[in-house]
């Protein structure tokens, strides 16, 4: 039996078992089983990937046929799995980080009763299975199935806390916004089916050039519509911040590390189609860049730490999409990999803080926590440093590569780079802001501070492992001028071997170093500004809706004026961000989504109230009108 089948189906089997019998087994057994299954899956995945690595680079593709989904004379689709360097990397991420998050959840969820506990692990295992189906798919039908399954499991987990209306609403929103994206994906699949008569990647992607330019653009844009829904790219990002209603490990696993990267994965997988259409690639890149910048500015004013990380995730996904949009697939995927580590870490650390403070998430009520929870503090600083792009961390290398490609790559554009750069500056600011507000300065809520405590080892261990991983994973993709040892690029090279021009930035070493210096300087300055603003006694957090009084305080307090114009600039940006969040993001984008839903409901109510009013004779009138309609159409369109 192929080890891939174990990787795929073991989590499913455990999920089913835990859902049915987990509650009776007790907590320990349910959790142990769930963790063990993912660990075993990881081991088998590693084994498969090692086996793949042993093959010569050009033939690193293993197709596993599970069974025929349908087999007609003209048309065959199998439940086929494809292991290649791309999916190999993804299964390691899903099972590896998935395992650490399982481990963390053992501690995090321990207050739930046995039934809920087993249910949680069943759902998470089911999610792992769904995500593996998605990444291992060898044709569009299987990838769509996986795509929908992760949607369903994400939805189940967002609404995990029963009786919480906000959780149910968030789950519904996530599901429906994703359906909008899926509509595009499904249309793309139909177009591909029509054009190629097959859904197998092996029959479609190598022959993508057969598509007419217009068709390639249509397919590309529709595929990206699906990708944007899953990867929370504006304006379909509205579901992701609300999705934080779910348990924290879920946020870490699904809404940061794995599922949301599915869109990036899809674009990378179908790059052959995107490469045919400069328009589609342009839309991808600009969507990514705008999302990266705008979401980063919104993150600057959030006070709920999970929401900060949520908008940060939207922003970082924007970078990945920007990366694949400018043709820097390897760079985008590398950022996917590093982000999976450090964002999982950041969410889990946030969960640890939340755990310590009994559910408190408002950073305005924290402060000085480093004394109480040094381990959480240290690991979160590591994660935030990676996120902010502090030099020599993994995030620094991966983001640097994307920005370089945006400036000098095959589809470069200065505007893309500028948006990316500004977004990176904002990222540095909000990362610093969060760390300093939570862990440094003076405690702002003494009662909560007194009761804070470090989390147990099952939660601490994953934090440490992820912190180490976050730092170490950067070594896989050091910049080209430092070393010729490029394991990540080499590993993915076979996947992107079909690209005509090797997507390498044509930049001089001086430019590269200059840019690195620029980023480093930016991070340092903004980090310092954040430190000054958020550790002092007069911590600069305005209360809700008190933007004017904060401005007032700013003017009143000469201290800030003395510092630097930078503060004024930051203030202005903060004001802008607040405006962006409140009016554009919450008002316009979210409002549109809600508005469409409300309009549909109003139309439904109209139908029910006015048309279905229970009066037989009125029904008969509609019947007669329908007959007239039929006759009229028959007369108009007669042959």
């Amino acid at each position, binding site marked *: 039996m192929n080890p891939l089948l174990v990787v795929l189906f073991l989590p499913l089997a455990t999920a089913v078992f835990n859902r049915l019998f987990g509650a009776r087994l007790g907590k320990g057994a349910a959790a142990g089983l769930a963790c063990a299954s993912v660990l075993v899956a990881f081991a088998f995945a590693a084994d498969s990937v090692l086996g793949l690595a042993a093959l010569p680079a050009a033939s690193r593709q293993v197709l596993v046929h599970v069974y025929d989904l349908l087999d007609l004379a003209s048309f065959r689709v199998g439940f086929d799995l494809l292991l290649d360097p791309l999916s190999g990397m993804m299964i390691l991420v899903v099972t590896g980080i998935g395992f650490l998050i399982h481990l963390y959840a053992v501690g995090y969820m321990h207050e739930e009763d046995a039934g809920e506990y087993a249910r949680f692990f069943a759902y998470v295992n089911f999610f792992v299975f769904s995500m593996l189906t998605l990444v291992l798919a060898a044709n569009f039908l299987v990838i769509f199935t996986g795509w929908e399954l992760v949607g369903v499991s994400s939805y189940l987990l967002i609404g995990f806390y029963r009786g919480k209306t906000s959780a149910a609403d968030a789950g519904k929103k996530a599901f429906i916004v994703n359906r909008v994206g899926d*509509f595009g994906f499904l249309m793309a699949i139909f177009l591909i089916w029509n054009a190629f008569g097959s859904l197998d990647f092996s029959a479609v992607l190598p022959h993508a050039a057969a598509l007419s330019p217009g068709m390639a653009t249509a397919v590309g844009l529709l595929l990206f519509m699906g990708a944007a829904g899953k990867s929370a790219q504006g304006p379909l990002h509205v579901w992701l911040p609300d999705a934080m209603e779910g348990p924290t490990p879920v946020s870490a696993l699904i809404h940061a590390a794995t599922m949301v990267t599915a869109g990036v994965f899809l674009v990378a997988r179908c790059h052959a189609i995107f490469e045919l259409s400069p328009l589609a690639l342009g839309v991808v890149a600009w969507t990514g860049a705008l999302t990266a910048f705008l979401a980063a500015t919104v993150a600057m004013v959030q006070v709920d730490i999970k929401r900060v990380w949520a908008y940060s995730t939207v922003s970082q996904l924007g970078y990945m999409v920007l990366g694949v949009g400018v043709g820097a697939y390897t760079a985008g995927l590398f950022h996917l990999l590093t982000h999976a580590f450090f964002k999982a870490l950041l969410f889990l650390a946030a969960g640890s803080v939340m755990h310590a403070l009994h559910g408190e998430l408002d950073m305005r009520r924290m402060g000085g926590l480093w004394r109480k929870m040094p381990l959480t503090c240290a690991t979160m600083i590591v994660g935030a440093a990676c996120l902010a792009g502090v030099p020599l961390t993994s995030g620094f290398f991966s983001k640097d590569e994307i920005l370089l490609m945006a400036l000098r790559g095959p589809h470069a554009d200065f505007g893309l780079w500028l948006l990316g750069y500004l977004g990176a500056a904002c990222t540095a600011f909000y990362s610093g802001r969060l760390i300093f507000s939570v862990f440094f300065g003076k405690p702002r809520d003494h009662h909560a501070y007194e009761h804070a405590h470090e989390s147990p080892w099952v939660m601490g261990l994953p934090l440490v492992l992820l912190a180490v991983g976050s730092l170490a994973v950067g070594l896989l993709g050091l910049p080209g001028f430092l070393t010729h040892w490029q394991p990540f690029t080499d590993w993915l090279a076979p996947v992107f071997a079909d690209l005509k021009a090797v997507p390498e930035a044509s930049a001089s070493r001086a430019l590269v170093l200059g840019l690195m210096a620029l980023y480093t300087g930016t991070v340092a300055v903004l980090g310092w500004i954040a430190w000054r603003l958020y550790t002092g006694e007069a911590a600069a957090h305005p209360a809700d809706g008190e933007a004017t009084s904060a401005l007032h305080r700013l003017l009143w307090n000469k201290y800030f004026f003395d510092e630097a114009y930078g503060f004024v600039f930051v203030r202005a940006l903060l004001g802008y961000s607040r405006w962006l969040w409140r009016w554009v993001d919450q008002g316009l984008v979210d409002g549109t989504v809600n508005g469409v839903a409300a309009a*549909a409901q109003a139309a439904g109510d109209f139908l*029910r109230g006015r048309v279905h009013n229970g009066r037989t004779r009125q029904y008969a009138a509609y019947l007669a009108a329908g007959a007239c309609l039929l006759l009229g159409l028959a007369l108009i369109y007669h042959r």
Partner: protein
Amino acid sequence: MIPAYGLRDLAVLGPEIACILGAALVLGLDMAFRSQSSKRLVEAAAALALGVSAALALGRLAAGPGSAFGGQVLDGAVPDVFRLGLAATGLLTLVLARREGGSQGLLHAEFYALLLFALGAMELITVSQDLMLSFVALETFSLAMYVLAGFNKAWHGNREAALKYFLLGAFAAAFFVLGMALVFGALGSVRLDAASALLSGGKLAAPREMLLDLGLSLCATALLFKVGAAPFHLWTPDVYAGSTTPVAYFLSAGAKLAGFGALLKLLGAVPGCPAPFPQILAVLAVATLLAGNLGALRQTNLKRLLAYSSVAHTGYVLVGLLGLGTAGSGAAASVLAYTLVYAVMAFVAFGLVAAAEGGLKRPLLLEDLQGMGFERPYFSLALAVAMVSMAGLPPTAGFIVKLGVFKAALDGGHTLAAVVAILNSVVSAAVYLRVLVALYMLPKSPDGAQGGARLSGTLGFAVVALALALLALGLLPGSLLALGSL
């Protein structure tokens, strides 16, 4: 010359004859044994008749297409599977009636007899090539259905449902009569095979073609009324909500199978489905999808929700019919597959409604399901599977059949209708999600249905088995798609 009809002709109608003889048997048994114990006997006889009918339909399927009674009847793979599906739907209705019948006053010989008469007529209409025969069959099952809808006259809802259904159904039937007259004027007969022979031979002058189109459109009105296509659908929520649950299921699934079987025959009269039929179907499909999905969006009464959902599903099937003009689009097969899977999904849904409303003196509401997810795990999982399948998500059979109808429409060049249909599945996701939210995410409501929702006996077994079948067909859709090669 007297045409010689013989046993060979009767053999083609075996499945119908089995139903009708079954009805006679049921009435006879009831008269012979007037005791409590005869109820089981009557039920067994009805089940036997349906089983025989199904077996004979299967036999006809294996035997290949057969023409009988001078071409008035023509079966073939698609009609035979429709007949099989109808017999199965009848059996499922018996299962539902067995559970619900006691409390809803359905366990009478007349109920079984009317059900069998209706099924016989429904099966007949799917093989009929003669509009007059179709009309008689249509009226036979309509009359039976009016009375089934009002079977329990003690209930106010039953009375209102019966009257509404009857008045509107008779009104729709009048259009059929006039349409038949116009077809007679155009052709000199009311035979569908005559129409297709003349049309494909190019022997029909343009004005006569037009008269034929008008006549067929009017006939289609009555059939579209039965399947609940907008704007002929307004009776559905009222009648489903007013009838007893087994009858509501029979009205939704049986009428869809028979109605679409008949529509396929009707459109077979115009080979290649030329204008104006695609335009008519496209307009109706869009209207039906919107009416069904939007109407269901805020519905709280579960039976009404299922009625609107039934309307929406009719819309999807109409989308599939759009591919009829294009060879190789598999339109007929997609319609067949969709209606069959709908019958299964609807059974699971109505079966669970029946299980949950047991003993409740008012209609079952969405809030009664709140918190069931964990108290009644099997009930809830089965309902969840049905809802996911109705929403058309993988890996369920609902997804596969939706793909089939979308593909048929796209192959027929009806991109816009397909896009509207796919967009509608976004709306419908919201509809079915509300059921899942109630089951799994909301706290138990204080005055929710108490004690019901237990899956037991034949109904429990059938519901769980068919919910699993929906999943299995989604994962192994080969058999479903094999319908395309019929």
